[in-house]
């Protein structure tokens, strides 16, 4: 995968940020005035930054153990193919929680804080990273209490499912964290990690896309519009390519 180093001119160009990570938001740059032409500079692209594979950067070992186990229950490996763990969802979560998403930097995080109705949405003062950290700790503590000192990752699959259902329904109450909010976010993020572009660390080998037959980051389906009812069997491609792009494979 190629990547151009960020260049000085790119940074100075018309308000565009190079190689930004997810949730770049609209960071205040500099007020500018435009008249007489549409600005354009060669080589500019507000392209995403692929994660660098490697050790976990944000999650602790305990959190990794929990997440590996939990995502394996949410989307298990089976005869259809790899599950969330094999697809690298824990790595995905690690990079997300360690970045702008984890900080909740695009959210309105001013007080006062009140619980609110379900229709008023998320009202916790916890950022996603804080919510995960507090909740995972609390779930492990809950499991310890209920299952004789065991952490979530040490339980049987059935027991794990029981805990997860309890969180989902609100039957399991956590100390210091809102179980339902946590579960909703966690399930959503797991699905994201399973189906997002592999450049973000999940959907390894496009396992999620292969499961359902989604061809990925394509942009031209005109040859297929009229192929009503036909299975297309297009190999999935990510933003950073697929094996077929390399002549040595």
């Amino acid at each position: 995968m190629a990547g151009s180093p960020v260049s000085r001119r790119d940074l100075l160009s018309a308000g565009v940020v190079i190689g930004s990570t997810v949730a770049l938001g609209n960071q205040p740059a500099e007020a500018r005035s435009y008249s007489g032409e549409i600005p354009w500079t060669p080589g500019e692209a507000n392209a995403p930054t692929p994660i660098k594979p490697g050790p976990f950067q944000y999650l602790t070992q305990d959190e990794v153990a929990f997440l590996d186990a939990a995502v394996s229950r949410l989307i298990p490996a089976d005869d259809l193919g790899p599950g969330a763990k094999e697809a690298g969802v824990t790595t995905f979560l690690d990079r997300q929680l360690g970045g702008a998403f984890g900080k909740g930097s695009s959210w309105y995080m001013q007080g006062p804080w009140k619980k609110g109705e379900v229709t008023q949405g998320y009202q916790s003062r916890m950022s996603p990273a804080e919510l995960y950290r507090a909740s995972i700790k609390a779930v492990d503590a809950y499991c310890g209490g209920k299952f004789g000192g065991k952490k979530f990752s040490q339980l049987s699959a059935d027991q794990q499912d029981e805990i997860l259902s309890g969180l989902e329904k609100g039957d399991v109450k956590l100390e210091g964290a809102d179980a339902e909010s946590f579960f909703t976010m966690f399930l959503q993020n797991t699905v994201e990690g399973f189906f997002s572009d592999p450049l973000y660390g999940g959907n390894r080998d496009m396992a999620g896309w292969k499961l359902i037959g989604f061809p990925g980051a394509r942009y031209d389906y005109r040859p297929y519009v009229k192929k009503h009812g036909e299975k297309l069997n297009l190999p999935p491609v990510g933003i950073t390519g697929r094996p077929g792009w390399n002549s040595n494979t």
Partner: protein
Amino acid sequence: MKIFRYAALAATALTALTSAAYAADTSFHELERGKMLVNAGDCVSCHTVKGGTPFAGGRPIETPFGIIYSPNITPDPETGIGAWSDDAFYNAMHSGVDPKGERLYPAFPYPYFTKITRQDVKFMREYLNTLPPAKSSQAVSANNPNRMNDLTWPLNHRIFMRGWNMAFFEPGEFHPNKQKSGEWNRGAYLVEGAAHCGACHTPKNKLGGDETSHVLQGGNIQNWFAPQIAGDMRAGIGSWSANDIVEYLKTGRNKHSGATGMMAEVVTNSTSKLSDNDLHDIATYLKDVPGAAADAGSKPDQKVMAAGKAIFDDSCSACHQTDGQGVPHMFPPLVHNANVQSSDPSSVIRVILDGAQTVPTDARPTPSSMPAFNWKLSDDQTAAVANYVRNSWGNSAPAVSASQVADMRKQLQANIAQ
């Protein structure tokens, strides 16, 4: 109360006519002729720095030998050419010497301007005299023989130009070819003279002189390849009609291609301002220039072509279509495209890496732009897809290597770092 102010369009033509430098006996017709030739010569592009006062100089012009900064050619008497006599201006245009006898560098295309008649040069001077005089620094003053340049030795000494001129410069005004039509001759006068197309489109020898046996058969300039604009069907404009040529020069695009890179500026500042008649004359001449087939070169291997096809179908077809036909006037067709099939792949490689904007003009305002792929494709992948487009759908061109891509990448980064 006066309600509505209108931000006045720069009515420089009108205000300039009252400027002090304007000679009372110059007719409007002469000024129009001078203006046409100054437009054809695209003086404003080289003699204006981005964001700066038009014609006041200061633009860095890359040559293979370093950088030359254009001087101020507004009528300012101290730092521009306001105090030059008409003869002095003619000598600069015709012989490449300044009023003090110092030689000018051929980044200023005097080897082409030499063809312009003395009378036409006078008209150009008269038009330039109507511009608002602008003061510039000594670094770009037309009257400072030691003005700013950044050339490698020994070229940083103007005396060296004497030898160069002897080898590569033949002064002389244009002589019409009596066997050709009036249109052909007027076109030749413009192309070989003021419009100096060969300065980019004719290949150069190692010392920067024209390869006179390959006129208009394509040249490499500042890491672009200015394609052949002579008659080869594959690498040149042999498949273009005269109307296609006129449309391209006037609006920046036609059904075969769109102007981008350095040609974009030429369209905006020069050719789009010429009359239809002048453009037809140019087209008549160009259609008669003998072309040369591109080098056959080596063909890319099957694995590379397969990888290139995968990349193309996934990433390029959304604009250029899987059959390479593109959308005429919007996304250039790659089939039978001269840029794509030039032996020198510089333009192909850099357009893939950096993207390209098709020049917007009043007639065709949409600046349809190709995005940059530099962050997305490796050198191998860039070479693969370049090879694919150069050798598919009936196209044929020599193979591109990953190291050529790597070199271009370095060049483009170096440009940015300046």
